[in-house]
């Protein structure tokens, strides 16, 4: 057993997601053997990120200013709004380079079994954003799992009467996968969303 600050460091590292006791011990000893300047820089970044990073007042994406880079950008299409669960989903969609609209981060998905209902998500803020009538299309890009689908159903039911076009990201076979390994639900979705091939 380790004493004092070494034990504290291992305990703290072990609280991080995906880090078990062995990994925590390995990281702790890596830090002990590292250059002090490197460790100080890591510590400063950790403190700075916690002090400075906040959520965008408009869309809920992580930012170090009042509003995020995407909400400040006047070149973005303000008629399209992509609704995602988490900030990391914004990054995933941005990486595609296919979408030039704006985002709204819900902060999760409806999950009754975990006690998370619609009131625990940023749905009220989403409705407030739609009051000026600028947005004409809502792209629901929640995760393609049951909770994400149910959240999409809930949003569609809420938004459709407002006269908006509500769309959902297509789902189906993964590019590079084998058809024989596709499960029934995924293959069924792929059939439902099949498209015409133009010669």
């Amino acid at each position: 057993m380790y004493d004092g600050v070494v034990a504290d460091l291992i305990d703290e590292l072990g609280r991080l997601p995906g880090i078990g006791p062995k990994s925590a011990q390995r990281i702790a000893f890596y830090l002990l053997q590292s250059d002090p300047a490197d460790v100080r820089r890591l510590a400063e970044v950790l403190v700075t990120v916690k002090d400075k990073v906040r959520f965008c007042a408009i869309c809920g994406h992580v930012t170090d200013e009042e509003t995020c880079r995407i909400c400040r950008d006047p070149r973005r299409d303000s008629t399209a709004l992509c609704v995602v669960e988490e900030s990391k989903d914004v990054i995933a969609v941005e990486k595609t380079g296919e979408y030039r609209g704006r985002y709204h981060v819900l902060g999760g998905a409806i999950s009754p079994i975990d006690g998370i209902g619609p009131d625990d998500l940023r749905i009220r803020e989403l409705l407030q954003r739609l009051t000026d009538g600028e947005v004409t299309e809502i792209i629901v890009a929640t995760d393609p799992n049951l909770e994400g689908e149910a959240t999409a159903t809930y949003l569609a039911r809420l938004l459709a009467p407002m006269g908006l076009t509500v769309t959902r990201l297509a789902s189906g076979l993964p590019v590079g996968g084998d058809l024989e390994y596709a499960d029934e639900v995924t293959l069924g979705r792929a059939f439902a969303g099949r498209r015409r091939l133009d010669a």
Partner: protein
Amino acid sequence: MPSYRDEAIVLRTQRLGEADRIVTLLTRGRGRVRAVAKGVRRTGSRFGARLEPFGHVDLQLHEGRSLDTVTQAESLQSYGAELSGDYPRWTSGTAMLEAAERLTPVEREPSVQQYLLLVGGLRTLVSRTHDPSLILDAFLLRSLAIAGWSPSFWDCGLCTAPGPHRAFSITGGGALCTDCRPPGCATTAPETLALLGALLSGDWVLADASDPRHRREASGLAAALVTWHLERGLRSLPLVERG
């Protein structure tokens, strides 16, 4: 460590590490089992959507010390895809999954009746033959009965004097006669008690014809019974969208 094969309903999933999930299953032969599904969150996973909640699956599992490992999964029926497109039914179904998990507190203790009740409940839920709120309440009352906490809605819950009785006590086991009712005991509409009895026994003709006012009262009593016996309410029950 041996391998085994069993049918199961996926009750819940939790993220584990980079791409894995812990799936909580209600199996036909071994009761509630928790197992690791490796790589299931990757888009190219061979499990795909088979191990999502509401999935009725035929599984091959490898027995582990604390958690088993899913090695193969074949879908028997997927109720989730249909339920997620109907918000009231999905929330009712989620409460059924949570109730099934909570009413099988001991892992690996066979509970065939709970398993069959859940499969039947989910089938009824997707068949759209009855109101989802009624199906949920029927499921809760029958799950309690299987767990040994069958309430009485006709005879007195204490002295078994034949009913109907108007007094209802959660702690007293259901309907109570005038001699057994404690001071301040709540009274319930006879139609509500008849509805609760119908839901417990499967009299759907009576249940489907019931008045919305009595359905609301019955739902409240069913939820109170579950909360009393489980000592802690179901988290999903307040989020169920009832008609």
